[in-house]
């Protein structure tokens, strides 16, 4: 496993591929959770420009600014800064501004950054996040499109024959409130409480992993 992590580290050290830098959007919007009935139309076109600012809006705007700042870094620094910032987006509602920013990262040309964004979206249980994944099925980078299919399969809990099957699944997919609660960010107290349980069961290991 450490070997696998080491690979991740090496990736972090490697140079960014392709045209990874994109310009920030010319217009800024107020961050709002995406409305369910419009989420899958075009998540990258901001419309909600006059809404009031909430604490979540402020956090989103601050995060988006950090993402843009990191994307402006040189290849050596960019990924190491960008990915931890992206990670923090899991604590925020999925707004149009956030979706548009994710799309910028996805279209930035860097494979690992794009896959990481899809992984973040995969962790959510929302119509807008699934719509984002479905749109990514048509991404010009084959690796990104394939990772999007994996993500759809993870959300759906099934295996799709192809991208078209995933699109059909997404048309009728509805968020499961129980899973939405399950996958929502938890406080540290919740995490600790869930790890100490009576009646735990232990497997019997009979196989040995090869040395790495």
């Amino acid at each position, binding site marked *: 496993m450490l070997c696998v992590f080491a690979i991740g580290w090496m990736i972090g050290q490697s140079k960014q591929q392709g045209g990874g830098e994109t310009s920030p959007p010319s217009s800024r919007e107020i961050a709002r959770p995406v409305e369910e009935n419009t989420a899958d139309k075009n998540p990258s076109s901001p419309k909600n420009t006059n809404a009031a600012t909430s604490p979540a809006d402020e956090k989103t705007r601050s995060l988006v600014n950090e993402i843009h700042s990191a994307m402006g870094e040189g290849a050596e620094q960019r990924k190491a800064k960008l990915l*931890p910032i992206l990670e923090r987006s899991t604590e925020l509602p999925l707004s149009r501004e956030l979706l548009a920013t994710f799309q910028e990262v996805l279209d930035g040309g860097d494979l690992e950054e794009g896959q990481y964004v899809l992984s973040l979206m*995969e962790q959510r249980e929302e119509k807008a996040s699934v719509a984002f994944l479905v749109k990514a099925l048509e991404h010009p980078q084959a690796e990104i499109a394939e990772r999007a299919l*994996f993500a759809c399969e993870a959300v759906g809990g099934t295996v799709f024959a192809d991208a078209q099957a995933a699109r059909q699944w997404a048309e009728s997919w509805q968020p499961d409130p129980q899973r939405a609660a399950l996958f929502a960010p938890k406080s540290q107290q919740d995490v600790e409480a869930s790890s100490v349980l009576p009646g*735990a069961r232990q*497997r019997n290991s009979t196989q040995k992993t090869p040395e790495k």
Partner: protein
Amino acid sequence: MIGLMMATAQADVRTYQGSSRWSTTFFRSNTKTAIGTTSYTSYTLIEYSGSEVVGAVKIDAWTARNPETGRTERNFYVDREFAVEFGYFGIGGVNIGGGMQFGGIACPSPFRGTLKYGDLDAFSLYNTADYYPNSSGLDVIEITGSGRYNAYFSGNVTLDTAENAVAAYLESRGYFEVF
């Protein structure tokens, strides 16, 4: 003896597919030198015999650029040291929680799941941190990550069969097993 045979006959493997994200902090010469972040598509295979967990395997698949060749490679790794322990909790035992341990990692990672027809259905792997003591003698000082998994296959098969099925599926998509 009969009970044992029946338990063996009831061996059942449940496979959960999902994604996990990990961030690793590397530390050298008392200086934090790098944070590596990686995302995996993962399969967690749990084998039951009756109500007992008798085997578990985790398969991680990822895409990465090989810095030596400059090419993007698709790989997967089968973690046969993976272990899971859990219990039921909540009113009427309506939820599942416990810990998972991966090969080469010293500390269990907590998870919480939901039930479907009395069995583990979806589960979420929570953030974990500080697997290793903060020592200049260690390269990795912190690993954090989280993931989500949905059950997508369940059947009366052996763990090897389920593992081979996942491996064949990944290989059909151009992934190669690494050791």
